[in-house]
């Protein structure tokens, strides 16, 4: 790196508008990469010294596709989200394969595990989340130093993917613990690519609280149809290992065991907040930040993505409670990317004088789209409500009651539920209806109003409307037969009656069929019908 020696921060720490010359980003996952990318213009312009520190050897890659990598559907190169050399060319300092040991806020330095000190004017924490290791006998419960036995893996990074890859290649038996999105996606992918897969989840349905009862039942059926075994209402208590110390079976509360070669832990993720905690920052589920993504009670520390919890100091702030999770990270990538974009725009404003970005809109509950080939599922929002349920708000102040429309067709694996208030979706489930799912996703995201006739949505997956719809047999003489030339059925019929016996002759006489040619078959039919009736 050729940048000049960092200048000591001259301005007083109280001056908010000071130019943040030195920005250190902790973490180099998808959200950090997006932030760095957005700040690159400032780095290239020499307005900022930007450093990014990642624990993995690899530059940022698309974590969403880790399961796909694990089943051999994609390559690490194709998942790349950042290139260290390219960033370096713009003056960004990229440090990979090293841990951040702690943040020394009093001296404004980030200390790496090898004792390197990185002074900062602003530090952005994008440490992400780590897989939850459930409390099972045989697994080390220490969340910070998980040493998993052979044959047990999470599904968050490239090394996890490598473990899954081995099992899939060997067409082995994979036990997926957890019926959440990640678990189902990994299970379906591994099963489709040749592994034997059992999903173990507690509760009576996969996706637990996110989905309603009928939807969950339909989903279980869909999973089974895809060849995935589903063990519901199962409480696991421990794992059994073989003499080599490797995973052999998952033990359940009822005394039974599920044998397998690989146990894939899909029990959720927890924000990695220990650095912030060590630095004395306020944490709850994640690192608590205000609406400008600044860690509470700090000047120079920011957090974005899966490690950040947006909950401002105002205890009655409506925005902070709107999502029903108290601002805890959703685990979805889109909100993190929006935060990265916004914070980078804010920094560019401070550094380059670009326009100040509009306040970051509060996140709405995200849409869950199951990333799978054999099962098409989208769902979002409040789907627990059933068609005849009493809306708790109906009697009080809400002018528009919650309304629910449902379509279910278990035989063909189709299920749609639309919960609306004033025609606007508050929640939906769409299973086995891809076009309806896509449309509902869009409507949920945009807040657009649904057609009053809800079946319009269902019909998107029906057979396509026939073109024109009017066949020669039933069309009146004034109906247009050839749009390109504006010729009616009557004119064509007259020409045939007048002696035209081939399509070419009719075309010559009437111009029908001389444009796109799409009506020539119909002309031929008319001719044949005419001569058939003459012959008869």
């Amino acid at each position, binding site marked *: 790196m050729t940048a000049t020696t960092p200048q000591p921060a001259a301005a007083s720490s109280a001056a908010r508008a000071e130019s943040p010359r030195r920005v250190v980003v902790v973490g180099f996952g998808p959200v950090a990469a997006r932030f760095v990318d957005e700040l690159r213009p400032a780095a290239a312009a020499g307005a900022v010294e930007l450093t990014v520190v990642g624990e993995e050897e690899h530059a940022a890659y698309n974590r969403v596709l880790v399961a796909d990598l694990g089943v051999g559907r994609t390559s690490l190169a194709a998942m790349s989200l950042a290139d260290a050399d390219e960033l370096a060319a713009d003056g960004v300092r990229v440090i990979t394969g090293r841990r951040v040991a702690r943040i020394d806020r009093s001296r404004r330095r980030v200390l790496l595990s090898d004792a390197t000190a990185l002074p900062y004017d602003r530090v952005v924490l994008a440490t992400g989340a780590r897989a939850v290791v459930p409390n099972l006998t045989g697994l080390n419960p220490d969340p910070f130093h998980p040493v998993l036995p052979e044959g047990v893996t999470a599904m968050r990074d490239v090394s996890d993917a490598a473990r899954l890859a081995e099992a899939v290649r060997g067409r082995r038996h994979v036990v997926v613990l957890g019926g959440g999105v990640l678990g189902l996606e990994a299970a379906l992918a591994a099963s489709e690519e040749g592994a034997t897969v059992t999903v173990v989840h507690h509760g009576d349905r996969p996706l637990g609280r996110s989905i309603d009862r009928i939807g969950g039942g339909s989903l279980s059926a869909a999973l089974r149809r895809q060849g995935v075994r589903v063990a519901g209402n199962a409480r696991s208590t421990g794992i059994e290992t073989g003499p080599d110390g490797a995973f052999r079976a998952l033990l359940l509360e009822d005394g039974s065991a599920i044998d397998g070669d690989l146990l894939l832990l899909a029990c959720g993720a927890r924000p990695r907040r220990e650095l912030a905690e060590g630095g004395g920052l306020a944490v709850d589920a994640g690192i608590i930040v205000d609406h400008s993504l600044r860690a509470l009670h700090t000047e120079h520390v920011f957090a974005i993505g899966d490690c950040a919890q947006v909950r401002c100091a105002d205890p009655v702030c409506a925005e902070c409670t709107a999502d029903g999770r108290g601002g805890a990270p959703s685990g979805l990538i889109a909100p993190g990317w929006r935060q990265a974009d916004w914070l980078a725009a804010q920094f560019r404003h401070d550094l380059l004088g670009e326009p100040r970005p509009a306040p970051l809109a509060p996140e709405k509950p995200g849409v869950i789209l199951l990333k799978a080939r054999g099962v098409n599922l989208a769902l979002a929002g409040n789907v627990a409500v059933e068609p005849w349920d009493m809306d708790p708000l109906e009697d009080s102040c809400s002018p528009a009651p919650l309304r629910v429309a449902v379509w279910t067709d278990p035989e063909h694996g189709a299920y749609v539920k639309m919960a609306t208030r004033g025609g606007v979706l508050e929640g939906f489930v769409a299973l086995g209806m891809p076009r309806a799912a896509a449309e509902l996703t869009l409507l949920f995201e945009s807040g657009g109003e649904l057609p009053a006739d809800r079946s319009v949505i269902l019909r998107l997956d029906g057979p*396509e409307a026939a073109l024109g719809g009017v066949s020669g047999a039933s069309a009146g003489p004034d109906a247009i037969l050839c*749009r390109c030339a504006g010729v009616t059925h009557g004119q064509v019929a007259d020409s045939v009656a007048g002696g035209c016996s081939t399509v070419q002759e009719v075309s010559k006489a009437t111009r029908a069929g001389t444009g796109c040619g799409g009506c020539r078959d119909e002309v031929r039919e008319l001719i044949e019908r005419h001569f058939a009736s003459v012959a008869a």
Partner: protein
Amino acid sequence: MSTATHCPYCALQCAMSLAPASAGAGGAAVPGGALPAPVGTTPAPLDVDGRDFPTNRGGLCRKGWTSAELLRHPDRVTEPLLRGEDGHFRPVSWEQALERVAHEVRAAQASHGADAVGVFGGGGLTNEKAYLLGKFARLALRTSRIDYNGRFCMSSAAAAGNRAFGIDRGLPFPVEDLDTADTILLLGSNVAETMPPFVAHLAGAREAGGLVVVDPRRSTTAALTADGAGIHLAPAPHTDLILLLGLAHVVINDGLLDHDYVAERTEGLESLIRSVAPWWPERVQAATGVPAVLVRETAARLARSARTGSCYILTGRGIEQHADGTDTVTAAINLALLLGLPGSERGGYGTLTGQGNGQGGREHGQKSDQLPGYRKITDPAARDHVARVWGVPAESIPGPGLPAVELLASLGKDGGVRCLFVHGANVVVSAPDVSAVREGLRALDFLVVCDFFMSETAREADLVLPVLQWAEEEGTMTNLEGRVLRRRRAIEPPAGSRSELWIMNRLAELLEAPSDFPDDPRAVFEELRAASAGGLADYSGVTYERLDAGEALHWPCPEGSDGTPRLFADRFAHPDGRARLVAVRASSPLPGAGPEAGAFQLATGRLLEHYQSGAQTRRVEALSAAQPEVRLSLHPAPAARLGITDGAWVRVRRQPATAAAGGARQGTQPEPVVLARAELTADIRPDTVFLPFHFPGLAAANQVTEQRTDPISGMPEFKTPRVFVEPAVVDPGIDEPTLDRLLPPGTLVPAPREERP
């Protein structure tokens, strides 16, 4: 005795023959001669017939069949018309007219400088006229202020093509190559309406089940995918770019990439990979409304064809006429490059040029930043070459001017254009935000319009100069394949009409211009050959003789060559011969907050029966009878919510009614609105409405489009992200045919009508 020429309208340039009108209605030699005689009152002086040619194979559409009806149309302007101080037009002699123009040019330039005179050209002009217009602007008018309506048409595709391939030719292959395709991805193009004979070239792909049409409407073209002929993808408007990024994502992640091709023939793969990595199919679904499964299926289909059959990707104005149009076309080109298509024998990428000479018209100097031969006006070597051909010092050629939207925005303003020439364009119908354009035209000191009808723009003129129609002139056109075609004279023009070449010749003399301004098309073409020699669009090997002998010549065609039907076989036009994969990004797809109730996305487009601003086709009775008025396509579901029935009048506006009322109270400008009849159809997304843009006045879709442009190409945003639709109460006393000529009430008083003895 018939004349072999081509249709006056679109870029397919269907071959036709013109013969003096026979006594009867034509077609008498054929049994059952039931030729639908033009219902009109205007007898056509020529009989039109389709002529066999690779593009149209003897076919024509309704517009072409009826084109000769305009030759002797009673509306035709046949003598120069000057607006008097009383606001009325009166005929004047050509001498008076041209003296007046020269006087106004000198006056404007004396008080406001050379750039106070501007020229607005058209993509329908012959190569000769387009070339001479650029030369006329720069040498006779000495202005940099020239641009043309192709900016509204091809500019995004052109910019993207130049960026990726180093050259911009609409189809870099003959159109018949499409016949063998088993997959064609057609994005934002409604060819079944805009160039019907083209549809025959989709037959092979349809038979193979491989026609993939991307359009938010189930357009006539999208409906061609029915019955197993292909797939219709209907992304929400403004999400085409995301869909294309998603297709590229699947190609890369599912190992569908043509590795050898990409390694040998392209640059930029790594950053491209990173740019599409965030767009996995499910995320694409969330942003576009296109099911993830169809994104995967489409990508797989394209890749399969690219490997084992033949696969083409074609774009049209639907994805190009956006403020991110260049990036969207770039994403389509990237997809084609990842699949190894451009320059291969297994397919390619192309854009479907719209206007008759939309290709040639963008190559020879009508563009604000261009000199003949598709040369850059800022390139010293290019300037030297052209200056040599013109016999002038290079420094006398002005620098780059302003792209169309900026040029129009400068009309009548300080430092802007005060005196404007319009050739082959009808900007008060076709430009974005037409109310503002009309205001600009009215703020000019002098407006000269060359046209053969009193188009809506001509009505705003101070002087209208009557020019020739297609069948009355000689010249060349370059069709959507980059093939140069001969346009031939079949009939004498009216006595008072003149060719634009003649007008420029006379004016150049009056303005004491350097260099020559021949009025003979062949002489102009000879000069164009020399001026284009060595440029990207090299015409030096094309001659009238070769064309008349029936040779198929596609540019680049340097002297002594037989032209280039297929580009990129060995190399792309960048110095290193490689194509560029340019990483592009979609602007924030999910705004988070929902739109206001009642807001729609507006798409604008075309009808089979009309061409461009409709100045010609609205005058053909059969066409006008079939599509007499503007209709707003609206889904029945939102229509029911808004209380709008089929056939009811509706108002389309940029703001909801309440906001508009507030604005009107304080503001000075009345809000532009479109008045249209509603046409309820389930073939459009419920969040989208569609207006054809062929109609004027209150019926002009461009009343509600915006002046926002693409930062790279200058293409306006013609697909307005947000409009409001409401039922309109129409005074039953107003007779409906005149409704569309009404202007927004308040300020925009209709221009006085022409009154002639």
